[in-house]
């Protein structure tokens, strides 16, 4: 670690230590809106060729029931095309218009003006009442803080009733606050994005088709769900224009193929060790964890100055059961992980190898539902899981993504990981958001 980075870390740690108020996400500053000509967050390079169809290949399952809040990279890529919050944050943290075309700080309120041309997929105009209704189903306190002046003007108190933390502007870019309304059939919620899902392709149920709501030069997107080991086959067959993957073997193979470009995305995910109260984590040797996983990873030591939202959730009142606090005797001596997550398995094995939670502690991979149940119960010595970067309020994010007992326990960051986008050259322009999300944009349109 060079001296400059060391000083940054020390300053960041001192700032965190001196921070006496409630936790808040350490977000990049708000530099203002990006200029339409700014292509610093554009991924595609070289000459752009207009195409009618772009094929996406993903190796994770896409579940409409999760929309609009993604649970994995595949959903993150797809949902970003379908749903919009009021704002967006580009790769540099700059605020961009979403459903709102403009925003301002008026005293103790944030005031948003919706786009005149904002429409749901079904053609209905988006009003401020629609925004509040969408929020109410996911964050009732935020909905209570909102006031509608007219159909296009929305005002939100910067602090909740009775005090509490200030609501940062970036929070309105979190996907959980995307503007949606329920679909009559109960399938995909109706969003305001530039694409809408028309359903599975005839004869190929594993292929979703997303069509542009208005052509405006946007292509039709074919989204193919591949088995985990099928990514290279998709590249061989030429059926993938864009592949988001973190498997090094696939990336290495893609690098040998002509016509493809490997673009690393943002460090958008962090693997953490959740330790219940009463457990003590030993020497982690963070620098040695890098070799434990097979993907692109770096120690989550905060060396870049970022302060992840989950860093200090101990002050949050998460409610619910506090988990078992009976000490070693009451807990199973194992580090639990989702068996579908290979990096989590590797990290758990490494932690066992290092004896972080004591000799005699083993690793145990559980199925998704079993892992969720075990995580909520807190009856094990530790849990390894992946957390995504969020711009949401930390306590609100913790309430949905972390077990209640973590308020008394500890979140130990292990590794930051990121995915790579394997792009076919001359692909229509793609933009990267602050959390690594990719968006399609027409060549002539702003991001």
């Amino acid at each position, binding site marked *: 670690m060079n001296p400059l980075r060391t000083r940054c870390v020390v300053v960041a740690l001192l700032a965190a230590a001196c921070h006496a108020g409630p936790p808040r996400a350490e977000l990049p500053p708000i530099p203002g809106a990006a200029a339409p000509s700014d292509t610093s967050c554009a991924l595609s390079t070289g000459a752009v060729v207009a195409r009618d169809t772009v094929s996406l290949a993903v190796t994770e399952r896409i579940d409409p029931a999760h929309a609009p809040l993604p649970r994995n990279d595949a959903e993150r890529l797809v949902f970003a095309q379908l749903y919009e919050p009021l704002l967006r944050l580009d790769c540099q943290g700059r605020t961009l218009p979403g459903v709102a075309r403009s925003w301002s700080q008026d005293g103790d309120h944030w005031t948003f003006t919706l786009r005149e041309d904002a429409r749901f997929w079904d053609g209905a105009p988006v009003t401020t009442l629609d925004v509040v209704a969408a929020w109410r189903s996911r964050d009732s306190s935020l909905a209570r803080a909102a006031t509608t002046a007219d159909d296009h003007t929305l005002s939100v108190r910067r602090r909740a009733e009775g005090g509490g933390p200030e609501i940062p502007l970036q929070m309105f870019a979190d996907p959980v606050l995307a503007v949606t309304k329920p679909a009559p059939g109960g399938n995909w919620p109706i969003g305001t994005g530039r694409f809408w899902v028309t359903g599975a392709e005839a004869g190929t149920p594993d292929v979703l088709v997303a069509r542009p709501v208005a052509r405006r030069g946007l292509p039709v997107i074919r989204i193919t769900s591949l088995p985990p080991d099928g990514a290279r086959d998709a590249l061989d067959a030429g059926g993938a224009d864009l592949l988001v993957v973190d498997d*090094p073997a696939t990336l290495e193979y893609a690098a040998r193929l002509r016509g493809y470009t490997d673009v690393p995305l943002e460090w958008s995910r962090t693997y953490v060790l959740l330790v219940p109260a009463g457990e003590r984590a030993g020497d982690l040797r963070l620098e040695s964890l890098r*070799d*434990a996983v097979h993907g692109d990873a770096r120690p989550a030591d905060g060396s870049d100055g970022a302060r992840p939202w989950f860093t200090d959730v101990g002050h949050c009142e998460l409610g619910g059961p506090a988990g078992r606090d009976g000490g070693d005797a009451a807990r199973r001596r194992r580090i639990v992980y989702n068996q579908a997550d290979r990096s989590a*398995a*590797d990290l758990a*094995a*490494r932690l*066992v190898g290092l004896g972080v939670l004591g000799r005699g502690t*083993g*690793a145990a991979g559980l199925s998704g539902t079993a892992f969720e149940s075990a995580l909520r119960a807190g009856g094990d010595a530790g849990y390894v899981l992946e957390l995504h970067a969020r711009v949401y309020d930390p306590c609100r994010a913790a309430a949905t993504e972390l077990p209640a007992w973590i308020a008394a326990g500890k979140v130990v960051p292990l590794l930051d990981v990121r995915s790579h986008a394997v792009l076919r050259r001359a692909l229509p322009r793609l933009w990267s958001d602050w959390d690594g999300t990719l968006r399609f944009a027409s060549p002539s349109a702003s991001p």
Partner: protein
Amino acid sequence: MTFRARLLVGFGAVVLVPLVIFGLRVRAVMANRLTTAYQQRVAALVAVIRADLDRQSTGIATRLDALRDAAASDNRFRTAVLQAGSGERTYLLDYAGNAMRLAGLAMLQIQDDDGRIVSSGHFRNEYDRLERDLPRLLAAAGGTALLRARTAEAPFLALARLDSLRLGGRRFTLVGGIAVDSSFLARLAPDSELTIAVVIPPDSVSQPEPAAQVLSTLTRPFVVEGDSAHLVAARIVVTHSLASLTALRRGVALSFLVAVLATGAIALLLAAWLSTRISRPLTALAEKTAAVDMDRLDVAFESDRADEIGILTRLLGAMTERLRAGAARLREAERRLAVGDLARQVNHDIKNGLIPIRNVFRHFAQAAAESPERLAEAFRERQPTVESSISYLESLAGNYARLSPQPTGEPCDVNAVVRDTVSRLGHTGQAEVRLELADTIRPARTDPLVVRRILENLIGNALDSLASGAGRVTVSTGPTDGETNGPGVRITVADTGRGMTRDELNRAFDDFYTTKPGGTGLGLSIVRRLVLDASGALRVETQPGAGSRFFVDLPVAAK
């Protein structure tokens, strides 16, 4: 205990005791032979396991040789282990895992000359761990030993072997092995009754089942890792389940129990049948014997059996016959004694009859001497007295005369006497007298007068017994076998009268006993005496209200 009970117990004991001894002996022999067979199987299996472990060890060595050669010729691996920071770190960490899977091993770890794990196949992320003792202990154990291979999830038991290679002047050790898990052990056991377990002191991997019997073991070195790593002897325990033997024993015991119960039941039934068959004639004989007394010597002891019971029956019959003869002689003596009494009675009666006559004649003599003219008057006065006395004496003489008949000893045609006697009966009122005479019977050796007097008394009594004079009297004749007294003639006089009670029957043949008004009580007494005098036999069957049946058996006359 009755004879029958003793017979049952004895029979049961004789049948069941040998059966029980046989069953127990069969069980013991069976258990011994099966146990011996099990021991032989286990000994053979131990030899097979020993050879298999040696073969597995050789196989591991062969695969480690191949891996060593492959690693030595792999420049990427060489770069990774010899040049830190070469960018081949991931390749190195994954190397052992890939090699292990390709070689078909369950564990493989590569350690450098400091004992640091540089690549582990079974626990990839245990890299950089120091484990200096393992190569040393494996070498001390001869290159092959059992050990607990760590994984992220849980350790497993492995049969491991040591190999090494030199790269760039540094020595690297390869520890590879196969898992000694339940499936490995199960493959060694040819069937489910054989169990193979690895017992490592002080803990045991798996304890033998309670129903199993430890039969044989073999040992292999085991590496105990930790702060004080050392070698101990692990035992590979081969046990043979005795469950099948127990089940076989239980089955034999059950079958044997069923056999014992069935045999016992059959034996008891057979014993009961036999004891009944044996004891029933004895019981009947005892009942007959109990009925014999001096007044009832007419009980027939007859048997055609050739066994001891038949002999006993005939002996009792002969004894009864002798008793009957003795009783006859006794009664004769009694009769003679009675005759003496009778003589005295006759003397007394005659004197009683003569006293009035003597007094009358004394009166006549006195009258003739003192007043002859009044003799005729006195005669007239005393004539009734004399006549009465004479009548009394005549009556007395008649009665006594009937007590002493005078047999002639001539052959007697019984049927003719029966017809003659019945024809003399004259009018019998409402009574019916029926004759059922045998066509051909031999003459009896008895005076016809005796037969007639017997018949007169029996038929007369029979007619008198008919209530209101109505009923039927049947007189029949026929031959008898005369097993004890020789061939004879039987006369049967049966009536449908009132019969006799037991007490009346016991006294019916006593002198002067009668139940009839005006009877003398001498009829049946005379009959009995006449029959005995004729060397015959008299028997009565009677039942109150159902009539009586008198059987008179007389010997036949000589040809």
